[in-house]
């Protein structure tokens, strides 16, 4: 108990010990108060009025002040206060408007001493003078404060707040004559007890009711107020105007505020609604509570520090019918759970990183930041007591500068601008994008695009230019560089392809594996088509065709080898290859329906590309002779994830959009949304608004597309009275003038309105254009030289 010994020294002989403990009350408490020597606590509520003694291990009920078979409403307490000078004296504020004093020294069971029924409404607060024995102050819902001399039968003075209900009254700890009152309308008034006619000072402290106020026990000028607006404010009252010096934002309305003894910067708060915890704040760090007591199950209604010089014991009463003694050492410290590191990027890619000093000091490689000493303590405590300060008081801030050139994002901007995401057939998009990437010196990305095109292109238009190779590798077919092996459903495939094909594909470009491959019933169509060289290989598994036809095509290949090296360019010869959006599911279904699922490998016809492709090839064994596009989906999915992981979310999103339905179902919606969001965010940072909008438009995630529908409102002010126009765009509510009148035709403009930013005159777009063609002055006659560009 090292800490306790310090307390002992602080308190002299009157030290006490204890632990976190509680007892059940019979009814919800409204307020609590302790006697001066901190050995007893009184609990008051609608149906309870009891005194408990605080023992080492427990609360012991000492006295029930609520006597009588049917206690009157005078016992229904809104507030209670124990006199800090006179041990036997208590005062309560009753909900029916009575102010009652109690004398514990009375011999009878009923300790009621005096009864003042001068207030017409509920009395919210009673307060004894800190040093004057007989002076009691009350504040009521009826808007009056009354000062009672307990030796007399009625109040000695009445203070009228001239406004709404009084919520709290507090005598100043240091100024004998001063008290503060807080009001339901947000005001705080300062009164001199000798001058009941007028307040000394009034200021608005909060929006909405000010539920509580508390004078600082040591600093005479400080007043803390708490309001329904969820704020605790500390005011410096020494200056002419009350000055807000600290403000703590809490999460619920503030019902009580109490300065912590012996700690200049600490105060405790509790809330009236929703939040059941008690917080102790260091007002210099208003964003995180210094300590939290989380024991109560319903709102805390009364808090009081057990002794006016002991900061370690807090008592609280609650609507959950319990009375607690909280030990400070048992409080939870939110700061321990808070994230101790901070990270932020600067405008030019610099990275700032703040963390506990101990974490960073081991790193010897840091170079000092030119801005000055990075390490500074956030604040110091006079007493470095570990329980009395925030967990770590100093952080180190490192700034990592970025080499501007190495991290240029030009490629990103250019890529974003040049990529085509829609509007052309799939294969063309791929080719275009591959080309863009290649020109930007990003071979891997370029190659990826090419692969995608090969994997997912519509086989109807595919031709493979390299028969020679094909033939030469016939034997090793199953292990060859086969990018896109597409099974075609027999009937459906050919028909649809027939419709789509433009008759360019050269039949002689089709390479069939001699001997055991069967091409589906699309020979004719292949014969009709020509010129689509450079496409990936494909295979058909269909036994209905006679092999002869296939063989006959086999060797008359005419294409030039050179073209294969740059297949993207070759594609440009071809046009109008229809983008065949074959959803993976669809294909799987095809496969299931296909009579050829039996799929003997012998039926494979595989057309391989030339070696130039091999560097990007996925060489894997063909487990199935029919490889639908869905076969590649896992690979593509991995590839997209890879790019996204690498930070190139641009690639991931672009591919996602270009592939569309082919891949979408493979990737879960959240991931997609995440990618989209990241990419859009990046685009907007680079001010690529058009691209970003295009991406939003093309996305299929509902969460993304709705981005375009937010914030579509344009707020304007009336041109006459300069006030915001709320209802309609063309008529002002306040001055009832048509605000947007065309300066040329003097009619109201509904629709496109153009105006000069210099003189703010304007009108119909067309009218202004015409006018400014012939004149350089403003049509309104204001003399401004307007310009239309």
């Amino acid at each position: 108990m090292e800490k306790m010994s310090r307390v002992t020294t602080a308190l002299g002989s009157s030290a006490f010990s204890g632990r976190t403990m509680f007892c059940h009350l019979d009814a919800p408490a409204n307020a609590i108060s302790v006697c001066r020597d901190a050995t007893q606590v009184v609990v008051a509520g609608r149906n309870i009025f009891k005194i408990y003694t605080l023992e080492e291990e427990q609360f012991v009920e000492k006295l029930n002040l609520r006597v009588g078979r049917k206690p009157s409403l005078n016992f229904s307490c809104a507030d209670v206060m124990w006199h800090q000078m006179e041990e036997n004296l208590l005062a309560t504020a009753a909900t029916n408007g009575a102010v009652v004093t109690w004398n514990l020294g009375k011999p009878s069971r009923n300790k009621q001493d005096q009864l003042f029924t001068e207030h017409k409404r509920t009395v919210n607060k009673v307060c004894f003078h800190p040093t004057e024995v007989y002076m009691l102050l009350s504040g009521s819902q009826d808007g009056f404060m009354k000062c009672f001399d307990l030796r007399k039968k009625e109040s000695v003075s009445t203070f009228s707040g001239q406004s709404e209900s009084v919520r709290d009254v507090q005598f100043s700890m240091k100024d004998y004559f001063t008290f503060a009152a807080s009001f339901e309308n947000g005001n705080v008034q300062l009164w001199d007890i000798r001058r009941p006619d007028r307040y000394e000072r009034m200021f608005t402290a909060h929006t909405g009711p000010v539920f509580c106020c508390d004078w600082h026990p040591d600093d005479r000028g400080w007043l803390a107020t708490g309001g329904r607006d969820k704020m605790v404010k500390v005011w410096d009252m020494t200056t002419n105007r009350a000055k807000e010096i600290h403000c703590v934002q809490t999460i619920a309305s503030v019902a009580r505020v109490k300065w912590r003894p012996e700690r200049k910067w600490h105060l405790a708060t509790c809330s009236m609604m929703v939040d059941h915890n008690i917080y102790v704040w260091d007002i210099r760090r208003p964003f995180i509570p210094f300590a939290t007591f989380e024991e109560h199950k319903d709102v805390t209604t009364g808090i009081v520090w057990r002794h006016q010089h002991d900061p370690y014991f807090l008592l609280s009463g609650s609507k959950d019918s319990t009375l607690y003694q909280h030990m400070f050492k048992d409080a939870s410290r939110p700061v321990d759970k808070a994230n101790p590191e901070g990270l932020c990027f600067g405008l030019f890619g610099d990275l700032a990183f703040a963390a506990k000093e101990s974490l960073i000091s081991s790193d010897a490689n840091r170079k000092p930041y030119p801005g000055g000493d990075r390490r500074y303590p956030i604040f110091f405590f006079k007493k470095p007591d570990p329980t009395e300060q925030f967990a770590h008081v100093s952080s180190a801030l490192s700034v990592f500068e970025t080499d501007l050139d190495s991290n240029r994002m030009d490629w990103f901007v250019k890529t974003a601008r040049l990529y085509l995401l829609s509007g052309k057939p799939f294969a063309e998009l791929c080719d275009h994008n591959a080309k863009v990437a290649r020109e930007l010196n990003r071979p891997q990305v370029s190659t990826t695009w090419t692969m995608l095109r090969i994997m997912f292109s519509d086989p109807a238009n595919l031709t493979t230019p390299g028969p020679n190779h094909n033939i030469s590798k016939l034997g090793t077919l199953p292990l060859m560089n086969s990018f896109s092996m597409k099974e075609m459903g027999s009937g459906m495939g050919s028909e649809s392809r027939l419709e789509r094909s433009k008759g360019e594909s050269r039949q002689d470009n089709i390479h069939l594996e001699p001997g055991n491959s069967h091409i589906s019933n699309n020979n004719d169509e292949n014969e009709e088509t020509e010129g689509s060289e450079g496409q990936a290989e494909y295979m058909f598994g269909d036994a209905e065709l006679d092999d002869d036809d296939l063989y006959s095509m086999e060797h008359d290949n005419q294409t030039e080898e050179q073209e294969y090296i740059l297949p993207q360019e070759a594609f440009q010869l071809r046009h109008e290859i229809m983008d065949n959006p074959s959803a993976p599911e669809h294909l799987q279904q095809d496969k299931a329906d296909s009579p050829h699922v039996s799929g003997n490998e012998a039926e494979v016809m595989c057309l391989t590309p030339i070696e130039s492709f091999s560097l990007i090839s996925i060489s894997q064994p063909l487990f199935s002779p029919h490889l639908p596009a869905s076969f590649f989906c896992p690979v593509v999915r991995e590839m997209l994830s890879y790019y996204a992981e690498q930070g190139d979310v641009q690639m991931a999103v672009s591919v996602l959009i270009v592939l569309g339905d082919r891949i979408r179902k493979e990737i879960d919606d959240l991931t997609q949304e995440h990618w989209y969001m990241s990419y859009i965010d990046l685009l907007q940072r680079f001010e690529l608004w058009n691209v970003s909008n295009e991406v939003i438009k093309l996305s299929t995630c509902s969460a993304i597309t709705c981005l375009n529908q937010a914030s579509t409102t344009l707020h304007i002010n009336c041109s006459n009275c300069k006030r915001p126009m709320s209802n309609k765009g063309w008529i002002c509510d306040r001055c009832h003038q048509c605000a947007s009148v065309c300066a040329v035709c003097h009619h109201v403009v509904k629709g496109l309105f153009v105006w000069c930013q210099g003189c703010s005159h304007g009108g119909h777009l067309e009218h202004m254009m015409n006018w400014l063609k012939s004149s350089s002055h403003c049509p309104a006659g204001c003399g401004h030289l307007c310009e239309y560009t």
Partner: protein
Amino acid sequence: MTERGVEIPRALALGPSAFIPAKEMLKEGPDQDVLLEAFLSLGRVDHITMVMAMHPSYLSCFLRTQHALLELDGPLPRPWRHYIAVMAAARHQCSYLVQQHSAGFLEVGGEESWLGGLEFVPTKLRSLQTLNKLLAHRPWLITQQHIQELVCPGAESRWSLAELIHAVVLMAHAHSLSSFVWGCGLNPEPDHIGGYTFYPPSPSNLPRSPHSPAHEDGRQELADGGMEVEVLMKRMVELQQQQEEECSQEEMLTRFERERSESIPTAVVRGAPPDVVLRLVEDPEFIYEDFAPRGEQAPPTMRAQDYSWEDHGFSLVNRLLPDQVGQLLDEKFQVVSNLTYHRMAMHEGVDTHTLRKALWNYIHCLYGIRYDDYDYGGVNVLLERSLKVFVKTMACHPEQTTARIYHAFWRHFRHSEKVHANLIVMEARLQAALLYTLRAITHYMR
């Protein structure tokens, strides 16, 4: 058009209210600005607005609240908001509001079939029925179980707390507005059922809509018997000066209970409400139930000091709904509780505070809310029986309001003062219903 055989309907009602002569309203000199504002935002000046325009400061506040509830950002989709208002108004058979909000519902793209009956709406909306019923007639029965059933029954019909509070505020708003509509005897709008006719006017037989409030003029019979204004004023002064005599707890409780359970005859059976309304009501027999006289079983009483709008209700609404609604409601309560013109009937410079307070507390008393610091003896002194009949009818059985009841109380008072009383009833009722529900929600969140 007549030549083309198109019948031209003719508005039936003369003026916005069946109780208040139209020229009375003009005489009061409505504030032009407020009406203009109302016209611009609604596209029409409906009868509610016209009558409320007698109290412009209240009207602007009311319109802003209604706008925020129905139009501005909020957790519920806009068609739902109108539909909930329709459901709520139907409980009080208020065909005026039902038709107003049905039109609003269709305007914002609501599914037309929903208006055909509750069986056509999503389960989630339908599950609101119990709460709607209780909120309209016996809000003191609402418990945290009701909230729990709505907030966590799994799957899609679950209400979020924010949605629920929005719905509750909407329902309470529509319920209390129904009271106002009945209490002021508002005529149907010209486009409502019963608001127009195709028959030509005949001078002898003044057309009377069957759906406008019954128009039995009871003025002649009431030549005598009402409390004279002077007497009332004297009592108010007395009550204000009177030193609080020490009453026993028993006595105070008795006074409260006496007011709460005083039997006020309100049974005027009306014709069945129009079909549009009836098919939207479930369990139409459920109505306000008079508290049993003391002794049998103590009816639940809510202590105003334990759960008040200022301390508790506001914080909860403000926490769960987008910023304005709580603020606007708060403002509206304040405006109505501070609204005074310092005059009573022919007398100027009167402090009407005690009278307004008595009225407000009497309504809360009818809903079982008790103020510890109020002596309910005052209610008996200040509120004459005919006024109590009116207030209780309006607050508890608004659909039974008749012109006789309206004309019977405060006979020397102006119409605008009667409308003022109407506003107090409406807001007190709204607050009472909200307090019970919000308390249940608070308990649920605990």
